[in-house]
Every structure is written in structure tokens, then in C-alpha cells.
């Protein structure tokens, strides 16, 4: 039973530069983003007693970062093994830890050298043990290859077109043009999108997110405490994690998923909106996990912004443009800002709600959605200023 609406806040945010080659260790990136989040909130590392992160065997443990920061006594430290599905879950873990009395002031971060170090998109376990023995021997190895299968299923079921997918990529890029932190800022037209080469049909190059070095961090604490800190607090109205039956044996595996034309989002929608006490029509800005273009369509549908199968026409009609009814991925998303595994979406949502988003600010944004995940499981938050 969720009775925590607006009881917890994101009191600070921090990021590093996003790049292809940071020239820094992941420990450096993580520490830098965490210190930035603390400085933003006006909280000393001495006050931190909890730290959570998620990783894909490509990061540094939470206690390592706490050690770098000179945190005097960590009482709660968790490293969740996960993909983008976990990007909002770790914020909920922070809330749960505080509510349970395990900590008071919790840092959440994601840090990776995702381009110059371990490239998540480039492959996986080639030894074909466990569930991988049923996929990799067929040359089905990378995440773009995994998710193209889902995209195709949406096209089969609903007639989704390349131009509709392209609208997601173009919209993200138009926002990134206004974002000084974004890695891809050259304008992109539909012709540019359609002319990009097929990587794994139905995905063209521009259906696929970036690979990035960088880190993002947020500081979570009680609302009554956050009110006394440096920034205008952003309240956590509600959040949810999950998916349907047969979520698989790892993040790639979806062999037993009922139908790949929809993803986790439909399974968490009622839980999410019920906890937040608002619905899709109340959302002013949505930062939707976009490791690939199609995942935006499935989450728009699953969370009720449009009907099942109508994500393609919904985006083609301009609904997700920055000046449209539902601005989506105002920072440029994973497609054009950076791939910090969805945690950069949380940073952007908070920036928008504070009114600190500069040229890409959505006027009077009061309620924001962030989502994380593209396949069988994922997480989402509803935030308000």
C-alpha cells in the first residue's frame, strides 16, 4: 500500500560531461556526479548515509564511491544488476530505504564509460551458457538485434512505419540542438533519418541510441528536509517497477514473453498512476526511455497516452514535439543527448520542473514522467515541482 505520495524529494542533481572518450575512470565520473548532486542540494558528504546504483558489470560499487567521497558511515549501499529497466527503480530503492529507517540521505547514481570502456550495445556473453545458448548460436547477440525483433512485431501488428519511428528520432534531435550537453546537436530531417543505413532491419542507424561516457546522480531525502535545502524540491508522487509474466532469464531473453508488440509499460501503468494520483493527461513533460525509437511508442501506448497500437500515428501527428501537447525527451534522450542508461532522463525531468532547462524549457512544467526500460521489465516515476 503506497502512502508516500510527495513524502520524498529529489533535492539535488549532478552530471558529468557526456562524451565518447572521458579519459577518466568510472570511479572519477561517479564521484564527480555525486559531488555535483550534493553541491546542488547544499548537502555535505558528511550527511550522506545511503548510496545506490545500478550497473551492467561496467561500473563501480556504491561503497567505492562513498569511500571516495569520504562518507563517514554508510548505512545502506546497494548495487543493482540491471539495464535501463533499473534507472528509476534505484530512486524507489532510496525512498524505500529512508522509509524503512535504513538511511536518511541517499545518493543514487549511474556511471559508465559506455563508449570508451565496456560497450553495452556491442555484444554480450559469447560463450552461450544458460539462456544465451538458445540465442547467441543463431547470431542473435547484440541489444539492437534483440529489440529490432520487438519493433518488427509492432510493425506486423499495427502497421507502424519507418516514418513514424523516424519522428521519434527527429523530435529527440530537435531538442538536443537546444541542449548544450547533448552529444548530437546537428539538425536531422526525415530524409536524413530515412537515408541512414540499416544496422539490423527494421532498425536504421538513427533508430539506435548513442554510446556514451558519463555519470548522473541525484540526492533523495524527505520532503520536510528537502524544503530547507538549496534548490526548489522536486517531489516523488509515485513510482512503479515491473512487467508481465515471463520476464525472462536475463535482460535479453524474451523468448516466452506473450507478445513483443507491447512491453513492460502496460503492466505497470495502473500501479504507477494509482500511486501518483494523477493520469497521463496531467503530465506536462515526459522523459521516456528511448534506447531505440520503437520503445517510445510502446511506452506511450502502455502508459495510456494513446491507445494500444496508435503510438505511430500519435508521434507522427506532432504530439511529442516540444511545443506539442506532450513534450517528450526534451534533452534529446538516449538517442541524441547521451546514453547514461536512462538516468539522464531523471536529471532532465528535475531540470524541467525547476524551470532550469534553458532554451528547451517547457513553460510551466509542473508534473513530469520518467520511464526506464524497453522490453519485459522497467520502471517509472511521476515527479512534481
Amino acid at each position, binding site marked *: 500500500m503506497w502512502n508516500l505520495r510527495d513524502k520524498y524529494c529529489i533535492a539535488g542533481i549532478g552530471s558529468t560531461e557526456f562524451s565518447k572518450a572521458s579519459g577518466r575512470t568510472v570511479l572519477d565520473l561517479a564521484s564527480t556526479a555525486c559531488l555535483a548532486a550534493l553541491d546542488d542540494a547544499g548537502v555535505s558528504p558528511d550527511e550522506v548515509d545511503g548510496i545506490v546504483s545500478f550497473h551492467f558489470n561496467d561500473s563501480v560499487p556504491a561503497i567505492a564511491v562513498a569511500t571516495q567521497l569520504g562518507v563517514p558511515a554508510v548505512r545502506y549501499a546497494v548495487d543493482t544488476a540491471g539495464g535501463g529497466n533499473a534507472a528509476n527503480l534505484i530512486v524507489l530503492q532510496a525512498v524505500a530505504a529512508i522509509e524503512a529507517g535504513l538511511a536518511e540521505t541517499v545518493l543514487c547514481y549511474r556511471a559508465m564509460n559506455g563508449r570508451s570502456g565496456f560497450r553495452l550495445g556491442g555484444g554480450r556473453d559469447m560463450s*552461450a551458457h544458460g539462456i544465451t545458448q*538458445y540465442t547467441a548460436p543463431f547470431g542473435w*547477440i547484440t541489444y539492437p538485434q534483440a529489440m529490432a525483433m520487438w519493433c518488427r512485431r509492432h510493425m506486423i501488428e499495427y502497421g507502424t512505419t519507418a516514418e513514424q519511428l523516424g519522428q521519434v528520432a527527429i523530435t529527440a534531435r530537435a531538442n538536443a540542438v537546444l541542449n548544450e550537453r547533448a552529444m548530437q546537436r546537428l539538425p536531422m530531417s526525415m530524409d536524413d533519418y530515412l537515408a541512414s*543505413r540499416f544496422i539490423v532491419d527494421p532498425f536504421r542507424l538513427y533508430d539506435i541510441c548513442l554510446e556514451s561516457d558519463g555519470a548522473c546522480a541525484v540526492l533523495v531525502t524527505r520532503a520536510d528536509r528537502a524544503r530547507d535545502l538549496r534548490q526548489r524540491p522536486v517531489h516523488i508522487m509515485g513510482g512503479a517497477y515491473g512487467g508481465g509474466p515471463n520476464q525472462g532469464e536475463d535482460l535479453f531473453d524474451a523468448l516466452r514473453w506473450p507478445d513483443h508488440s507491447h512491453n513492460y509499460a502496460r503492466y505497470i501503468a495502473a500501479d504507477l498512476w494509482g500511486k501518483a494520483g494523477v493520469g497521463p493527461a496531467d503530465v506536462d513533460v515526459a522523459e521516456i526511455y528511448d534506447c531505440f525509437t520503437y520503445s517510445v511508442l510502446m511506452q506511450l501506448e502502455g502508459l495510456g497516452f494513446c491507445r494500444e497500437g496508435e503510438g505511430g500515428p500519435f508521434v507522427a501527428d506532432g504530439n511529442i514535439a516540444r511545443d506539442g501537447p506532450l513534450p517528450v525527451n526534451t534533452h534529446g534522450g538516449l538517442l541524441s543527448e547521451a546514453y547514461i542508461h536512462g538516468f539522464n532522463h531523471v536529471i532532465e525531468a528535475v531540470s524541467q520542473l525547476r524551470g532550469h532547462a534553458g532554451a528547451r524549457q517547457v513553460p510551466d512544467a509542473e508534473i513530469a514522467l520518467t520511464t526506464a526500460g524497453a522490453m519485459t521489465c522497467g520502471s517509472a516515476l511521476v515527479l512534481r515541482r
Partner: protein
Amino acid sequence: MTYAKPLPVPDADSAHFWAGCRSHRLLLQRCRSCGTHRYPAGPVCPACRSRAVDWIEASGRATVFSWIVVRHPVPRDLYQDEVPYVVALVTLAEGPRMATNIIGCDPDAVTAGMAVEVVFREATAEIALPCFRPVLAGAR
């Protein structure tokens, strides 16, 4: 010549399946309690939680549920001579879904619902991979 692409590593759950493939038989688990077929092989029936299982030989017939055409090889050295190739999810006549390759077919000719049948490709002396090819019109 050494086979460099990923090879399945059979385990206690899957050994029977891969042994079947080696003799060109597509074997599936069927729950002895509720009759549900399952793939990939596993220790428990997710439908009724029974551990009792029989192995049956599947018909080898399936339909294409979804597919991709890999055009950019990853890792390059292993797949540059393979692209374009088709990976598909096929729905077996018995119910479960399998990941496989569609072979003997122009990659651009694959369609949703296309009828396919199993054909085994020898990878090594120990491993044969269950691939699928289109069922010729009129064939049965």
C-alpha cells in the same frame, strides 16, 4: 576449420535437447502433469509447477512470429561473411517459441506467419543448430 561463432554449452537442463539436435530430432519438454510444452528447457513447468516431464519429438513445423535482418555484423570478424542473415522468433506447432535462423530464403522474402520447417545445420561434430526454412507451397 575451427568453428568460431558462439556454440551452445549444454547443461543438465538442456543436454537432452542438444543431443536431439545432434541426431536431427527437435525434442521438447512436455509437462507430465498438465501437458504444456516448454522451450527453452527448464526444471519446472511454469504453468503448473510440476517437475515431472517427458521429452517428445516435435513436428518441426512452425510459423514466423517476428524476424530481423542483420546487416551490420557484430562481432565483425565472425559475421562479416554471413550478413545479411535472418534471425527469427518462430512459433512451433506445439506452442513454444524458438529463436532460430531462417535459411534457404531471400532475407527480404520473409513474412509474418510464413510456414517454416526445421532443418539442422552442423556446426561441429557435437552440435547441430535447429534452423528453419520455408515450407514449399503444396508440400506437406
